[in-house]
């Protein structure tokens, strides 16, 4: 970690230059500590520019929602925050994605270390085909925690945070594959939490779940937000309105209402508006946001 911090120093000039996102001066959000910052971020899949010119900041202990129509690049942006896009052949990020002021795409930065600090919950629950206990203990074990007692404590506290402990405490050695979809997704949250991350990225975590399971996950996010910073991509606008402090609206439509068509008839996603969730949903500045929110476009 110390090594990572050193990388930050020569780059302070860039940090101050970064544009402040247009956050409304609402008391609760003012002065929140910035934890991740994106400045002029373009993301490419080979020659296709999937995302263009994103500037935004993620703030500590807040829930930031990313919304927008399909193909607007919100998941791509989310996955750039912990370098999950590295797994995709030909994916490339230009611009600056900084975590505590450290450029995540600096060649001296180890993506494995990033992912231990910036955890992720995926769209489809993806537990390992192992026991419930081993699913949670896997991340901590990688970090070198070997003692049975310490692991057990960590597994319990992670499962408690994910509101799953009471349902599985008597069958920790059972396969995680035997859990219901909602339980599996909470298990994945517990697994992400067990590595004691700073930031939790959630890529449409409720899209495969029924309304009851969705409510549980939303309550859970509210509960753990005091300890983590959460960024959630969601297709469900009500969900964004319910749980998030700030909302970023992505779209492929340009400010003048036209679209830029790239080769292969594809479009590039852009950040249309970013601000407090209350403002985005009640009084957005951008006409595109207004149209999407009111259901006329999208």
């Amino acid at each position: 970690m110390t090594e990572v911090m050193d990388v930050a120093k020569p780059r302070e000039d860039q940090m101050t230059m970064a544009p402040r996102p247009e956050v409304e001066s609402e008391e609760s959000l003012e002065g929140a500590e910035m934890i991740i910052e994106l400045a002029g971020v373009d993301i490419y899949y080979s020659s296709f520019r999937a995302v263009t010119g994103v500037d935004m900041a993620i703030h500590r202990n807040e829930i930031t929602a990313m919304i927008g129509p399909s193909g607007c690049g919100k998941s791509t942006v989310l996955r750039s925050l912990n370098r999950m896009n590295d797994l995709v052949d030909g994916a490339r990020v230009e611009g600056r994605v900084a975590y505590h002021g450290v450029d995540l795409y600096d060649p001296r930065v180890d993506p494995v270390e990033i992912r231990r600090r910036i955890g992720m919950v995926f769209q489809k629950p993806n537990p390992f085909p192992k026991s419930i206990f081993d699913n949670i203990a896997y991340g901590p074990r990688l970090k070198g925690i070997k003692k049975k007692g310490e692991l057990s404590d960590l597994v319990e506290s992670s499962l408690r945070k994910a509101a799953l402990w009471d349902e599985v405490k008597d069958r920790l050695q059972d396969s995680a594959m035997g859990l219901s979809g909602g339980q599996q997704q909470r298990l994945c949250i517990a697994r992400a939490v067990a590595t004691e991350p700073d930031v939790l990225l959630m890529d449409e975590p409720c899209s495969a779940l029924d309304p009851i399971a969705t409510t549980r996950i939303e309550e859970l996010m509210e509960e753990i937000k005091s300890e983590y910073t959460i960024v959630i991509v969601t297709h469900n606008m009500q969900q964004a309105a319910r749980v998030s402090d700030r909302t970023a609206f992505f779209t492929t439509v340009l400010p003048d209402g036209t679209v830029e068509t790239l080769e292969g008839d594809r479009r590039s996603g852009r950040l249309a508006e970013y601000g407090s969730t209350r403002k985005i949903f009640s009084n957005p500045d951008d006409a595109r946001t207004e149209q999407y929110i009111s259901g006329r476009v999208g």
Partner: protein
Amino acid sequence: MATTFGRLGDPNTAARVQAELARSGDAKGRAFQYLLLGGLFLALIILVLLIETVIQDGWSVFTDRGLVDFLSSPLRSEAAEAGVFQGLRGSFWIAVMVALIAFPIGIGSAVYLEEYAGKTRFARTVDLAIRNLAGVPSVVYGILGLTVFVQGYRVPVLGWETADWTGGPSLLSAGLTLSILVLPIVIITAAEAVRAVPQSLREASYGVGATKWETVKDTVLPYAAPGILTGTLLSLARAIGEAAPLILVGAVTGRLATAHEGWFDIGQLTDRFTAMPIVITRWATLPEREFNVTNTAAAIIVLLVFVLMLNSAAIVLRNRFEKKRQG
């Protein structure tokens, strides 16, 4: 009259809908289904006939002489005394060598190609080459083995003479040749098993901060294990059944006298050798009926059971891994 919940429309509507809904009988579909079933039965009948013939011809060996005698006797010119001991031992050692040589190299290559090589031109070229190699006739591998392991090949730069290591037409040369023969098949099947690992599992692993090595070791390989195992053990069965390359590598068809006689004597690796398919092809060409019918059939039964045991082991192991995969 039954309770009704509302009023139906025109009575003609019911008649029309009934006509529309009537089964039309999917004649083509049913014909196709019977065709498939016929194909399946044909294959089964041939298999049953084969086994039935072989058992009828060869069973007397086991009843008259006893299984143990047949399994423990060496190659001899007297049909009533000849046995498959040397062939079975040769095939056993070939299987061991293939498992020790081809499996690690093949599985390693597959993991490299799938997980590390990426989509480079190099990887694509190698992949294509391996697929073509899998289709090369086995005799060609026999010629390769003859040239490289039996006649000897001077390794460039290092100056090693391969024949000094293999002992020429030896069991080791046969094992190496058959390892090379099945290597492409092992790589292809293992690569397919690795490719079948869901990307979401890799993401899960990277997502909790695993390195590439940890992801491969803890997630990809355990998940791919049943598939890898099935493929590799089937390729082992293939290696055991090959005769053509062994003939070229110098398998002995007549009397075989070796210095090392035990089952597990490692010294026999550089001795001359024979194997089950060789024994069978040799006996089948001898003029005496006791050889070309009776003993041949009995040897075929032994080889079939040997392969069957290997395949059963594959299935048992695969089921165990699959159970583990479910948690």
